[in-house]
């Protein structure tokens, strides 16, 4: 901002204040600052995961702008005469040639390209971890469901923008990825061929693919994402940040440090830490060595042709799917590709709709600003871990060849393990996680009632050995008992005392069953009541 100096009228005011006055007169800076500078944020490392995403997104935009200065989004054929010797004289597209030039002939080009790519990998990874944090602590509950949805859309768009981005250089690997996508589109019954022709402007690969992907990659998706990021942040400020339960922390307050100066410094500094770490990563490790892949030609393919990790689970789906194919009325239906194409969005949707399912099942319409400890919501935690286990096993399926070569296993055996695990692992993970949660709840109960084990063994006069237990401090007891333990929904008697049958909707019954599964006897350990605590700690008890 220029500071519109006018030294004669306000001689005494320092330049900063003058600038602020100027801004206040035009955008109402003081009111904005008053309401936001003292905004309180709670302190917890997991609340900074979203910041990692935000900062890597900014880094991606900054480096992306630099790359667009040199990248030629064109499929026009040229012969390479640049400085990378092993490709001299090879025919390639202008897109590939310009990416080679960025890598070898533009000053700082390779570093910026690698920052752009590593930041994308970290960005999507950060979003997934951030989403898991929100999931397991129940931060998606009212009033934050919309923000959960925004976050989910950002994840999906981040995935697809990443896919489009690494497809642009038109190297052998990315061309294979687009070929994969073409196959998936072609497998759609009836309209598949038309869709593919529409997408590629004719026969694959054609000349339209790179310019089209370029526009979507640098304009359409980032534009929408930027809007969503802003909306996401506005909602965070509007809802205020959630916090973990603790003494003095209630559903109605936020305990932490103010934005100015503490979080200004912490968050501002953290931006540079993120930029630094990603730059360091880009300076020491290669990402996407397009020069080694060679230019794309539809008649060539290399092994180790996988997508970037965030698309890895779709690769897993296609690799574990048997190559089924049926012929119906003269049309071939490629189920081996079509089924994975259908399951792919379902895997993502499963986690996206969970908050709405939970709020329907529990019938909970209250606002929640205090986070759940994952153990205190065993069913939710179990379902989340089940989803992660499914996601991870699909990643293993997607990288089955590398598991085979590096662990000296048969790729067929790995594929079968993944096929079976796809169905078996999530339920097993659910059961085990739920049991661990219940075990931890029992442990909390034990700690509240009997205190901490000190390891000090005492011998009583009559010869008995006991371990001295130290009662927990009051704050800790509060922390362990602050959570709600909702009761499952009851439908009530279906037949009243006069024998009249009350009509209960089927959905009501399902809901009651699910509610029982969430909050029933098997799903939570009753937390100690004040009376129990009183009775045991008053000294009349056993110890």
């Amino acid at each position, binding site marked *: 901002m220029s500071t519109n100096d006018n030294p004669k009228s306000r001689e005494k005011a320092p330049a900063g204040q003058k600038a602020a006055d100027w801004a206040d007169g035009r955008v109402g800076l003081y009111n904005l600052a008053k309401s936001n500078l003292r905004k309180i944020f709670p302190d917890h490392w997991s609340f900074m995961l979203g910041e990692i995403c935000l900062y890597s997104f900014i880094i991606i935009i900054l480096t992306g702008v630099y790359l667009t200065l040199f990248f030629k989004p064109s499929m026009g054929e040229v012969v390479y005469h640049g400085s990378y010797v092993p490709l001299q004289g090879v025919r390639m597209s202008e897109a590939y040639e310009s990416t080679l030039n960025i890598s070898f002939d533009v000053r700082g080009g390779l570093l910026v390209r690698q920052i752009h790519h590593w930041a994308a990998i970290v960005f999507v990874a950060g979003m997934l971890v951030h989403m898991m944090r929100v999931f397991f602590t129940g931060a998606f509950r009212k009033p934050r469901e919309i923000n959960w949805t925004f976050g989910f859309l950002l994840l999906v768009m981040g995935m697809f923008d990443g896919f489009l981005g690494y497809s642009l250089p038109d190297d052998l690997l990315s061309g294979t990825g687009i070929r994969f996508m073409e196959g998936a589109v072609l497998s759609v019954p009836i309209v598949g061929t038309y869709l593919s022709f529409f997408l590629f402007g004719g026969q694959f690969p054609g000349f339209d693919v790179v310019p089209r992907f370029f526009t979507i990659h640098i304009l359409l998706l980032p534009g929408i994402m930027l809007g969503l990021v802003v909306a996401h942040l506005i909602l965070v400020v509007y809802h205020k940040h959630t916090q973990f339960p603790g003494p003095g922390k209630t559903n109605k307050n936020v305990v932490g440090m103010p934005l100015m100066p503490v979080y200004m410094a912490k968050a501002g500094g953290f931006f540079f830490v993120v930029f630094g770490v990603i730059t360091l990563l880009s300076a020491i490790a290669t990402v996407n060595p397009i020069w080694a892949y060679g230019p794309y030609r539809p008649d060539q393919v290399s092994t*180790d042709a996988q997508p970037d990790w965030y698309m890895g689970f779709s690769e897993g789906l296609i690799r574990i799917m048997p190559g089924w194919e049926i012929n119906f009325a003269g049309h071939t239906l490629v189920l081996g590709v079509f089924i994975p194409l259908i399951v792919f969005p379902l895997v993502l949707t499963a986690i996206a709709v969970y908050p709405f399912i939970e709020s329907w099942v529990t019938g909970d319409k209250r606002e929640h600003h205090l986070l759940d400890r994952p153990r205190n919501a065993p069913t939710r935690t179990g379902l989340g871990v089940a989803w992660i286990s499914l996601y991870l096993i699909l990643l293993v399926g997607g990288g089955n060849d590398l598991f085979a070569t590096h662990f000296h296993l048969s790729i067929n055996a790995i594929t079968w393990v993944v096929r079976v695990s796809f169905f078996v692992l999530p339920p097993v993970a659910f059961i085990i996680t739920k049991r661990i949660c219940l075990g931890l709840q029992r442990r909390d109960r034990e700690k509240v009632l009997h205190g901490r084990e000190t390891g000090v063994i005492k011998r009583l006069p009559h010869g008995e050995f006991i371990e001295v237990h130290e009662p927990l401090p009051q704050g800790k007891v509060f922390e362990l008992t602050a959570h709600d333990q909702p009761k499952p929904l009851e439908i009530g008697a279906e037949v009243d005392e006069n024998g009249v049958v009350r009509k209960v909707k089927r959905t009501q019954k399902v809901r009651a069953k699910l509610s029982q599964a969430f909050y029933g006897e098997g799903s939570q350990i009753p937390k100690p009541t004040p009376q129990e605590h009183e009775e045991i700690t008053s000294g009349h008890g056993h110890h």
Partner: protein
Amino acid sequence: MKKLSVRRRHPLAALVVLLFALAATGGLYAAFAPAKTAQADSSSQSIAIEEGKKLYATGCSSCHGPGGQGSTDGPSLVGVGAAAVDFQVGTGRMPAQQPGAQVPKKQPIYTQAQIDQLAAYIASLGPGPGIPSKKQYDPKGGDIAAGGELFRTNCAQCHNFAGEGGALTDGKYAPSLRGVDPKHIYEAMLTGPQQMPTFPDTTMPEKAKRDIIAYVNDTTRADNPNPGGFSLGRLGPVTEGLFGWIFGLGALIATAVWVAARTAKARKS
């Protein structure tokens, strides 16, 4: 002339004619007969075959049969040629340690001289591709860029774009080409060992083979300046994802924990 006609009835005349005839026959034979038998080293070749046969009987015959005819444990070696022997024994694959999905490369147990003797013996069983000469496989004579295109068309689908190797079905695999002798690469293309298809000169001319060798040699050489930093194995996005998660996001989360642990302290004023 008179002298000749006078003496033609001489008792020794028949002998003289016979001598001339024999000399002519011998001379003609010497002039037109196949050169092979006349070569001086035929004795050393036969010695090599003899020695090779002995080595074969000790080290190979239990699986490939006493006469190289093959058995249930090993294929017939009739007609595989010296190149196949030089590749299999020279890379240590043969003699095989144990049956399995695929015979792995290991430290060769025969010296090159012994390998040559074995090769001579196997070559004597039936005609097959011979050991290539240095001129044929010398990477210096090849075009790296053309070799790269040929490699991506014919080899990369199993050996990966940079020759790092890859998985095949049921525990079989395409081995890494790192540090493989150019001669062995040439022989592998010529003879198609184990899962590998054969690329005879009719489908892949000698020059193309040399180009491929030049590309492989260039991309896998130890002093290849990997332009982007650590190569992460050149195995594609899987290792990149793993690296990004552990060292990228991992480092950032560690920093986040560190930042969050250092909370501002309230000052008494």
